[in-house]
């Protein structure tokens, strides 16, 4: 599957990685919901690092849609919360 880390690029990640990624993703989500910046920082960094280390970067000239999308690496908790909200921060 293809996973995009925003402002960074796309990675091709083996499907059997999904389970481990989902665990970390759930940790990030609960940290966002709990407004816990420390927990967020740790889980989010692990999630991104796992995608980077277990995935292969997709070539720049490859045109392919992503199955999953992750916020940019320098995003903080509140930015992520805003992105997931209805405010439509992602420009068309």
């Amino acid at each position, binding site marked *: 599957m293809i996973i995009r880390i925003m402002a960074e690029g796309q990675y091709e990640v083996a499907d059997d990685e999904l389970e481990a990624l989902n665990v970390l993703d759930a940790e990030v989500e609960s940290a966002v919901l709990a407004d816990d910046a420390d927990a967020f920082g740790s889980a989010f960094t692990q999630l991104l690092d796992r995608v980077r280390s277990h995935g292969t970067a997709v070539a720049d000239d490859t045109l392919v849609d992503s199955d999953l999308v992750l916020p940019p690496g320098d995003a903080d908790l509140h930015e992520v919360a805003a992105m997931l909200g209805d405010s439509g921060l*992602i420009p068309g």
Partner: protein
Amino acid sequence: MSIMKRLGLIFRSKANTALDRAEDPRQTLDYSYQRQLELLQKVRRGVADVATSRKRVELQMNQLQQQGDKLQGQAQKALAAGREDLAREALTRRSALLTQTQDLETQHAQLQGEEEKLTLASQRLQAKVESFRTRKETIKATYTAAEAQTKIGEAFSGVSEEMSDVGLAVQRAEDKTASMQARAGAIDELMASGALDDASASPNSDIDRELAALSAGSDVDSELAAMKQQLGSAERQALGEAPAGGSAADQVPAEQPDEHTKEG
């Protein structure tokens, strides 16, 4: 729902919205290509803007460095003149400057990071736009308008998503740069007003003035000393105790100013 999935859905719905605007599929390809080129220009402008901000911060760092060096020099002069109070004042100002410099260094690193990210984003987008152009030309050459309709979705895959991502990256970079530009502007104003330890740069700086007064004072002292010495020897001469090696008469200036005829 998972964050990864939700963001993925947001991106896909953006892509579909872009597609829904399609009327003639082949025109849509061209229209989208134009928008991609515009976005590419925008990213490149973004890189240039961030670079400008970075250079401005570099300039300010250099100015603060020079002021810091000057205060350091003043502190040394003041200490040499036995004015520890002045030296302390100069060093205190210098330490405030150093704090400001550290803040600028942090900003500089952030701007450099943004610049690199946008440069990479611009390279990625350029590669994808080029791929899209090839795909677009193939579709236009191979399919009729009716047939092309089914190929449109494929043509757009990856491009719309990249455009959304790059668009957001530029927006975030602009936001971050704007707040740093505001701070840089504030520092420029402080420098201009002289409030930010910039007093040392003006000739009316109190440290400068006191140091100047100190050195003027010592000049006066040494002149007085020299005069006293001359007076002393003149008195000795008057008492017939002329120093060995010459009489006072020899030292009387022989020249009288000639009376020149002034020309009208």
